């Protein structure tokens, strides 16, 4: 189906082949990630961040600027008319008339799909509630692909908040296109939701679950760590009960394969010890860095920038 003019609402809107086109393009874009490639001159990208973000917003912004385009938008709703009570639909309609594409992050689930129904321009979901974060999953798979040259055959441990973290949802959806071994590791109350478990079984994905990272660490090629999503807990007491329940430290990674890499979508709170940063296992900062070429590739494919 190709990428031109497409909305990016969930990873499942795309095929494995689409993802591989994106990865090849991202590899190509790495050459320009610190320079400039004027292929989106005159195009405007709207960043509608109703929820906080550092990496996703800035990497989209950087990507658009590196491609020669411009960026408009807001981060937080205080300085916009939403503070006066304007709704999402009207805000999106306005951005749609100003920009060539819209990147949206919102705290409510399904907000990005709704925005895509309202807007004529392509809408890119940069995170909606605890539902989806497709471009993060694309970046995560790209990082694995860059590191190992393949995704098929990898053993992947996902450690942390499997219940509320949208990146976990999107990552597992994306991994469903590949033959991987999945170890899910979380405290009992943060096990995946029924929707995700049913998705995995509908796709025939094999996985095991444990609450003890020591049991899985020796087998994994990738340890993907997510923080506990404090802001998504309906009950703060529930958060207090699981807070600090897991931690990746030097003691844990002693038992890992030498080639094992640790990924994290960031921000981290206390689930990865700072001492781990200087080990050869740490890839989370590199992963975040790849966010720019990956999003350059995405914008190029969607907005149709041509270059030699």
């Amino acid at each position, binding site marked *: 189906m190709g990428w031109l003019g497409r909305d990016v609402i969930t990873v499942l809107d795309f095929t494995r082949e689409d993802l591989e086109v994106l990865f090849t393009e991202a590899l190509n874009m790495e050459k320009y990630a610190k320079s400039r490639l004027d292929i989106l001159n005159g195009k405007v990208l709207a960043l509608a961040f109703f929820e906080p973000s550092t990496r996703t917003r800035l990497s989209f912004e950087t990507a658009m600027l590196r491609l020669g385009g411009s960026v408009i938008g807001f981060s937080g709703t205080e300085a916009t008319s939403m503070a006066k009570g304007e709704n999402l639909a009207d805000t999106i309609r306005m951005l749609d008339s100003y920009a060539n594409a819209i990147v949206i992050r919102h705290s*409510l689930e*399904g907000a990005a799909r709704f925005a895509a129904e309202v807007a004529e321009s392509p809408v890119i979901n940069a995170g909606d509630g605890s*539902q989806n974060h497709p471009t993060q999953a694309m970046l995560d798979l790209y990082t694995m692909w860059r590191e190992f040259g393949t995704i098929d055959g990898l053993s992947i441990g996902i450690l942390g908040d499997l219940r509320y973290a949208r990146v976990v949802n999107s990552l597992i959806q994306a991994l469903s296109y590949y033959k991987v071994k999945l170890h899910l590791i979380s405290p009992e109350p943060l096990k995946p939701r029924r929707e995700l478990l049913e998705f995995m079984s509908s796709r025939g994905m094999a996985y095991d679950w444990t609450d003890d990272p020591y049991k899985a660490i020796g087998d994994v090629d990738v340890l993907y760590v997510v923080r506990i999503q404090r802001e998504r807990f309906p009950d703060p007491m529930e958060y207090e009960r699981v807070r600090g329940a897991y931690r990746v430290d030097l003691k844990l990674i002693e038992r890992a394969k030498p080639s094992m890499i640790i990924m994290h979508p960031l921000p981290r709170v206390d689930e990865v010890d700072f001492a781990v940063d200087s080990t050869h296992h740490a890839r989370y900062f590199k992963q975040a860095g790849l966010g720019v070429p990956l999003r350059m590739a995405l914008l190029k494919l969607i907005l149709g920038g041509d270059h030699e």
Partner: protein
Amino acid sequence: MSSKKELIISKIRSGVVIDHIPAGRALLVLRMLGITGREGFRVALVMNVESGKLGIKDIVKVEGRELTKDELNLVALVAPTATVNIIRDYEVVSKFKVVVPDVIEGLIKCKNPRCITNQQREPIKSRFRVVSREPLKLVCDYCGTIHDLGDIEKSLGIT
């Protein structure tokens, strides 16, 4: 139709007869069809009458309003056993058993309070895809939350 039933309501000239509704669900059937009684056309309701198939059942008759098959299939959510008879000039011109449609819009409220469809001030209607009919399972098209029969009945006010 037996003469016993005709004692209760007479035949209709043209419209729809929805038969084999589980007893006590006739009002919900009207709600599924969006019929409030204020539209002006004639509606007849029979509740708790004897049925060979169901023991007791409800029947709804609507006269003077054309209902599409898609509209009528929504009845399956609350009355999976219902059969529909389309009547023209006192004759049954078609008869079918309702089936839950593939997509259900606007009727059911998503149980996820953080779903965009539960925002009051957005021009949005709920939309569910049917992923299984037996057992009934719907998925919110916006937030992906799975709804079982119990959730659907709760949303529709069936206890």
